[in-house]
C-alpha cells in the first residue's frame, strides 16, 4: 500500500519539520511538507496540521489559519473519512475551523509551559489511538501558551465519547496538579463524532524517539502508527 500523508505548512508553523522528520524517518511513511496555499487533498490519505504559531497566533491562536484554503481541502478529507489530525497549534486551528468542538484559551498561569506531561487514553477508537488501550498513560511533552481546553458542551462530548486524552499523573489519576493549563476536566485532546479528526495539545512528534525522551519512552510513535493503521483499514 502506498500511503501518503501531508503536513501543512502554515505561515508561522514551526513543528512542521519535526513532524516530517518523525513520519519519514521514524515511522517510515511517505510524507510531504505542503505550503498551505498549494495543498490539494486528492494526493493524500491523511493530513496533519502541525504545531507552531500560524500567522503568529495573532487575534487568537488558530483563527487566521482556519481561513486558509488548506482548510477547505482538509474539509473534503474530513467528510470522506480520511484522518485529519491537529497537534498543538493544529488543534487550535481545527477548533477554530469548527472541525472539532470547543476552544483553546490562554493557560491559567498566563505563562507558556514547556514540559513533559502524562496523558490518559480515554478513547482508543479514533484515527490516532486505535493501537492504544483505554487507560494507557503516555508520556508526551507540551509546549503552549494557549492550551486551556474549554467547551460549553461537556456533557455531549462525554456522551459521544469525543474526549480522547486527559492530563493525568503517571499512575493515571486525573488530579488538578496533573493539569498543566487549567483545561476543563483535564481534557488534552478531542475528536469529532466520526473519530477521524483528532486534535491534541501535546506533541507526539517530540516523544517518538528514545534519544530525546527523558525516560526513553516512545509513546508518540503509537499515535502516528495508529494513524497509519486507520488509513490501512480504511483503504482495505
Amino acid at each position, binding site marked *: 500500500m502506498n500511503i501518503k500523508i501531508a503536513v501543512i505548512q502554515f505561515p508561522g508553523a514551526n513543528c512542521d519539520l519535526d513532524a516530517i522528520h518523525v513520519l519519514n524517518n521514524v515511522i517510515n511513511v511517505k510524507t510531504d511538507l505542503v505550503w498551505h496555499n498549494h495543498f490539494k487533498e486528492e494526493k493524500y490519505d491523511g493530513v496533519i496540521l502541525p504545531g507552531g504559531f500560524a500567522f503568529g497566533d495573532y487575534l487568537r491562536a488558530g483563527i487566521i489559519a482556519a481561513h486558509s484554503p488548506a482548510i477547505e481541502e482538509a474539509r473534503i478529507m474530513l467528510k470522506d473519512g480520511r484522518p485529519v489530525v491537529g497537534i498543538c497549534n493544529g488543534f487550535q486551528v481545527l477548533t477554530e475551523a469548527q472541525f472539532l468542538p*470547543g476552544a483553546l484559551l490562554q493557560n491559567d498561569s498566563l505563562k507558556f509551559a514547556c514540559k513533559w506531561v502524562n496523558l490518559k487514553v480515554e478513547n482508543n477508537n479514533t484515527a490516532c489511538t486505535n493501537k492504544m488501550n483505554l487507560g494507557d498513560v503516555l508520556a508526551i511533552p507540551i509546549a503552549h501558551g494557549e492550551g486551556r481546553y474549554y467547551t460549553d458542551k461537556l456533557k455531549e462530548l462525554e456522551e459521544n465519547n469525543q474526549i480522547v486524552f486527559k492530563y493525568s499523573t503517571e499512575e493515571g489519576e486525573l488530579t488538578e496538579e496533573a493539569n498543566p493549563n487549567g483545561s476543563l476536566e483535564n481534557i488534552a485532546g478531542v475528536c469529532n463524532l466520526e473519530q477521524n479528526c483528532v486534535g491534541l495539545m501535546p506533541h507526539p512528534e517530540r516523544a517518538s524517539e528514545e534519544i530525546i525522551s527523558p525516560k526513553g519512552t516512545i509513546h508518540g510513535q503509537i499515535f502516528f502508527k495508529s494513524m497509519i493503521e486507520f488509513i490501512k483499514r480504511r483503504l482495505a
Partner: protein
Amino acid sequence: MAPQEFEVEITLMNKPAAKDPVGATIQKDLLAKKGYDMISNVRSGQFLRIHLKAEDENEAKEIIEKMCNDLRIFNPVTQNLTILKVSKL
C-alpha cells in the same frame, strides 16, 4: 455620495464561564498591593480599532457586524463581541 472614512471600535471579552485569567491576575496583584480596596472588579479583553470606508454610519456598522460573524472575529463558544463605537473620521 462618495464613501467616507469611519472608525469602529470593538471589544472581545471572554464569557464568564470561560474565565478571565488576565483580569483575575490583576485583581490578585491588587490585593497584594496595599491601598486599592476601592477596586471591586477587573475584566480584561481584546480591543480592535478599525478604519474603513463606507457610505454612512449604518453601512459601516453593517460591514463590521458581517465581518465579525463571517470571519469569526470572536469565538462564540468563549467570547462576546461588543461594538463600542462607530464614528466618522
